[in-house]
């Protein structure tokens, strides 16, 4: 019970920090870090995908209250959640679907984290950039790439400090 309260409190705090702090840390007017992606990236894999989709949808809508356009973050997070299990299956071809759901992400080696996190973050950033700018121009690609690097860096720092076991 205590653990659940701590987790829920951590999620709420992270979402508030995203809206109040991280969304204001814009660099060169290109992107701000999506630190709250840590929550989606480290959702326990033993959780049923249905619950996972519902959880990230809720997160996306909550972030949308602070950062426009509303709905874009939910779309991005759903894409991320759909992709990350498939990406883990690619990274661990011997495990199979069931094996993937038993991976303990917080116990993965530090070196394998960027490999696991980068593509889902890129997918999220790209989806949000396209949904926000309604274009596939070079400018959008640049924002998506820059956003990926920025968000990935922040996520890695947060996960090393708060999540790694």
């Amino acid at each position, binding site marked *: 019970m205590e653990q659940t309260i701590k987790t829920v409190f951590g999620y709420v705090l992270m979402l508030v920090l995203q809206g109040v702090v991280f969304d204001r840390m814009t660099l060169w007017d290109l992107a701000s870090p999506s630190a709250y992606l840590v929550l989606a990236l480290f959702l326990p894999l033993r959780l049923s995908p249905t619950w996972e989709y519902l959880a990230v949808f809720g997160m996306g809508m909550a972030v949308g209250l602070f950062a426009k356009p509303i*709905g874009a973050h939910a*779309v991005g997070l759903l894409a991320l959640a*759909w992709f990350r299990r498939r990406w883990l299956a690619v990274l661990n071809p011997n495990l199979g679907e069931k094996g993937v759901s038993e991976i303990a992400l917080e116990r993965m080696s530090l070196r394998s984290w960027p490999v696991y996190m980068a593509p889902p973050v890129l997918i999220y950033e790209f989806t949000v950039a396209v949904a926000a700018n309604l274009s596939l121009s070079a400018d959008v690609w640049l924002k998506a790439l820059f956003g990926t690097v920025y968000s990935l860096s922040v996520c890695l720092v947060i996960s090393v400090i708060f999540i790694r076991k």
Partner: protein
Amino acid sequence: MSRLFALFLAYRHTVVFVALFSLSLGILVRFNRDQSLFFTRWSLAVGGYFHAKHSTLVNYLSLGEENAKLQAENMALRQKAITLESQLNTYKYRAPYSTDFSVLPDSAFPLSRYVFIPCRAIENSVVHNYNHIVLNVGRRHGVEPQMGVISADGVAGVVTQVSENYSLGMSLLNKNLKLSAQIHGKKVRGSFQWEGGSPRYGSLHYIPLHYKVAVGDTVTTSQYSTIFPEGMIIGKISHINSRESDGFYDLDVQLNTDFHALDFLYVVKHAHKHEIDSLLRTIN
């Protein structure tokens, strides 16, 4: 029902994902002005594209109906044209003698006695020496043997046998069919006949050599017929052969009707044919 439920259970994650993704996109479009405008423009473009495709398809599917309408309209126009032509001819011939046209009887306008029955060719041969056409109209529609068959391009044949709903006709490409024909504008008459071979060419005989004819002259039906109205196009002269021995031309005629593409036709009905035929029988 249980199978449907089992299917839903098997794909429940995908269903939830698709539902939430759609909901997110819906919220994105509903609550953001730019996205809403973009979606409206996009849906208009896509909707317009499919609407255009749908219209094309519907138009294509209703072509039969449109064709029938056009055929009926064409028939009415043809009838009107023939009546007007008939009146014009009558006035033209009468004008030098009298300008009091109000006293002219109806019998002064012989061409207006033709009635056209629209139909379609449902069978048509072109490769034999005695080719036939089967029409989708019969006795029920007022068709009788010895009525002419024309297409929009010209003469097509003559009805020979009639059943309740169908008719059999000799095509113009039938060696047994001979027509009284004339060269347009010359009032000189001959006999047209297809003599086998190419379905594009027939022959016009018995045009005396003292008449001047030229390649390109139009060959039409003459007024000496109760089967066709005067002036129905048969074809154009494509080659001239002179038979000095008997004093006539042998003229090759390029047919105006494309018998390979025979489809919409008209059966020509002469309102007074029986009367004229019974008079002719008294001579025989």
